[in-house]
Structures are given as C-alpha cells and as structure tokens.
C-alpha cells in the first residue's frame, strides 16, 4: 500500500467550482435516461457514478453527453465487466478501454467487483460469487495488482450479493476482502445493501462483517434496494438495485458511518429506474443521516 495515493476525501470538485469537496454529499448512479435532465437541471448531488462499460466507445452521443456532464460534476467509474476474479487471462482490450476512459474523464474513483463473470472464454455478464479460499485470495491479489499496475492507480473492490456459498470456502467473505485490500493495496467499496442481502441469505451478522473491514480501506459506500423472494421453502433476498433503500440497510449505514467516518456515499438504482427526483431524494436522505452521524461524533 502507499504506491497509489488517490484519496477522494482530499479531492476537491475541480470540475464545477462548487464549495463542497467531491463526495462530501451523496451521489447517484448515472443512468442514460437521466442524462439530459441532469444537464438541464443540475440537481445538487455530490457526484455521479457511471458504469464504465456503458461508455466504451470511440465516440458518439453517449460519450459526448458524459463529457458535458463531467464539466459540472465529479465522476467515478464503476466497472461491471472486467471479470477480475476469473481464471481466464485478463481481457487486455477491456482494460485498455478502461484506461482510455480514465484518461478522458479523470474520475475521482475507479471500482470493480469481488466476483468473476467468465470461464473458458464464455461470459455470463453477471457478478458471480467466488469460493473464499487461499487459492482464490492469491489469484485475486495478483489480478488486482495487475489491474492497478496497468491503470497506474488504485482501484476499489466492491462486495457483491450472493445466493449461494461454496463448501470449499475456508475464509469468511469479510476476512477475504480485508486480506485482499491489505495485500493488493486496493481500496474497498462497501455495498451496505449487499452485506445485508448476503447476511440474510447466509445467516451471518452484518455487524461482524463491518467490524472486520479495516477502517482506512473503505473509500466509498453503495446503498441500494433489494427484493424478498420465496424460492421453494426459503426466503431469498435478491439484489435487484431496483427499489428504495430498505430500513435495515439505512440502519446498517448508520453503523458503517460510525466505524468508517464520512465516506463518499452513492445511491445505486439499476432496474425499474425511477424519476430523477426519487434518486435525488434518496441521496438527500443519505446526506441527512451522514450529517447526524457527524454531529454525534463531534
């Protein structure tokens, strides 16, 4: 650790000249259907997070509008397709596209997932769970290092929701991600909703998870909604990112703020995307909770 020096908390919103540092207010995930409205209305948001792959393009209208948005908001890039946990070779084309995007958009944070999505050249384009073994840890540390060296910057790794566990696992997910951060020098993007979903699905205490993550490794927090489904005789929570943040997840967010201090927080909403105002209201709610946490800490 220490090779990469990007700390978002020290960055100012150099693009829009606002008084608040980038990330001091909550941000939202940027979705194409809100592009124009965001440019027209410029809602008060801390920053915007774009899915990297959506802007893998030589040119064209999507990329153009992101450049316009970038003039008014700080931006983070969140990848969903690098398949960093796969045992296939890293896709250098994908990585080059990402490097180009980073060069062109100067994001405050770049993140990927603690998951894999391809094997034998076939891609499932989903965030698939890993077995938490020493073998997988060694592999992930090498892969994250390779990505960071190629991009010449630190990346954040985000915990995913899961619906199964492998019986080969010898480590817990929280010990795995803590060790990954320590050994690779990556930061952690903590998705509080995903922790809650996995905790309910697998029967662990989400506070145990939070308490195992090193305080200084968490550089971003995600909040999102999930659904409760009945599969056979079991209730399974599915991470849809398609509704408002649930009350237990807000409660867990309060706990996370006590442990990790003020961390840039993002509202994610990927399916059944609502009106922009709904997202702005969720971000404002996150801001209120963060302010209250700061007042208690002070």
């Amino acid at each position, binding site marked *: 650790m220490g090779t990469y020096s990007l700390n978002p908390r020290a960055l100012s919103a150099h693009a829009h000249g606002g008084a608040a540092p980038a990330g001091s207010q909550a941000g939202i995930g940027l979705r194409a259907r809100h592009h124009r409205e965001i440019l027209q209305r410029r809602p008060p948001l801390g920053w915007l997070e774009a899915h990297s*792959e959506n802007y*893998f*393009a*030589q*040119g*064209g*209208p*999507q*990329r*153009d509008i992101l450049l316009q948005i970038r003039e008014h908001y700080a931006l983070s890039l969140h990848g*969903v*397709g*690098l*398949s960093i946990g*796969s*045992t296939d070779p890293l*896709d250098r*084309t*994908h990585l080059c*596209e990402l490097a180009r995007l980073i060069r062109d958009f100067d994001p405050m944070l770049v993140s990927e997932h603690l998951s*894999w*999505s*391809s*094997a*034998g*050249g*076939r*891609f*499932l*384009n*989903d965030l*698939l769970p*890993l*077995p938490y*073994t020493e*073998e*997988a840890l060694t*592999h992930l540390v090498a892969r994250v290092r390779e990505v960071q060296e190629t991009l010449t910057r630190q990346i954040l790794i985000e915990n995913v929701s899961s*619906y*199964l*566990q*492998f*019986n*080969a696992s010898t480590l817990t997910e929280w010990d795995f991600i803590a060790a990954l951060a320590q050994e690779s020098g990556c930061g952690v993007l903590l998705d509080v909703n995903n922790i809650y979903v996995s905790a309910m699905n*697998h*029967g662990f205490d989400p506070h145990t998870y939070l308490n195992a993550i090193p305080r200084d490794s968490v550089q971003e927090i995600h909040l999102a909604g999930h659904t409760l489904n009945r*599969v*056979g*005789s*079991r209730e*399974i929570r*599915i991470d849809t990112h398609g509704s408002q943040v649930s009350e237990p997840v807000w409660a867990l967010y309060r706990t996370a703020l006590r442990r990790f201090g003020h961390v840039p927080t993002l509202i994610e909403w990927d399916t059944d995307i609502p009106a922009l105002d709904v997202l702005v209201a969720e971000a404002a709610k996150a801001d209120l909770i963060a302010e209250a946490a700061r007042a208690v800490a002070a």
Partner: protein
Amino acid sequence: MLSLRELQLSFTTAVLDGSSTAISPWIRADGLSPTARVNIYRNNFHEGFLKALALGFPVIQRLVGEDYFRQLGRLFVAEHPSRAGNLHHIGCAFAGFLRDQFAATPYSYLLEIAELEWAYQECLIAADAVPLDLTPLQSVAPERLADLRFEVHPACRMVSSEFPIVRILCQSGGSGRHRTHRPAPRRGSRAAATEK
C-alpha cells in the same frame, strides 16, 4: 478439492448449458438445493442478456412480440454466448442467427431488420469525425478531381436489403433512438444508408 478454474468452468456450464451436475456437490445446500441456488444465477443471467439484446434490437422485439423475442434470445445465447465483459458486442451475430432461423420463410425480412439495427448500434459507438465541408472542393482544379479520395464517416454503415426495411422500421414506430437519412427505399432498391 475442485480448483478455482474447475469450479468456474463447472459453474459456467451450469448457467449456460443448464447442467448443474458437476457444480452441485460443491455448493452448500443450507435449506435450498444447489440446483435451485444455481437457477437464481441462471435466471439473472438470462434476464440480463435478454434485456441487453432487447435494448439493441427494439424493432425486432416489437415485430415478433416480447414472448417470442425471449424464446429467440434464449436460443441465440445458447449458440452465441457473450465473448466479452462488455455487452455491446452480443448483437453482432444476431442477424446471422436469424438468417439460420428464417431464411426462405416469409419472415426473412427480420434478418435484414436485425442487420439495420446492428448497424445503428455500431454507429452509436463509432469514432467522431467532422463531416466533410464541400466548399474547398470549388477550388480544386478540374484536372485534379480524379485524384480526390473520400473517406466514409466512421459512424456510417451501408445495409443492403431485399425488403423495404426502413419503411417497416418507420411503420413499427421507429427505433426511437435514431434518424434515418434516406427516403424509404423501394423493394429491390439496394440502399438504406444510416448514420447517427
């Protein structure tokens, strides 16, 4: 003990090919069968793929209806699984797949519509370039005209069609995202040029 590599290959087989025999022994049942757990991922995978395919081919989806589009999409992904972490490319083989399905049937116009929609998708992410300014051409000496070489704009594709695909596209409500820069061609005419 299954290696990480073997685990990932078995899991991929379970999701794509529907056979969870190899992966099931390595998944904790914990109140729900391993197959049921894999099926959650299998379902997520199909939903994500079909959604991405429908985004790229909205006119095909409208013409064949949502249910049949889903059936086609499931057959398509079984034969042409995604080869990249970026879903932009999944539609590349769709027109060819539709040709195999519908050649020499009354529905063969669908594959031409798919070619047109794929051309749109390619144009949307193609490099930017300033369109040609024709004014300087006035000062080119007539004897040099034969030396001029023109380059096609990167966001321009030519789609040849037997069917009046632009008219079909417009009558079905358009693709919603694009403009076409040609009058609807007559049947048998060879050009439906598109650009962003």
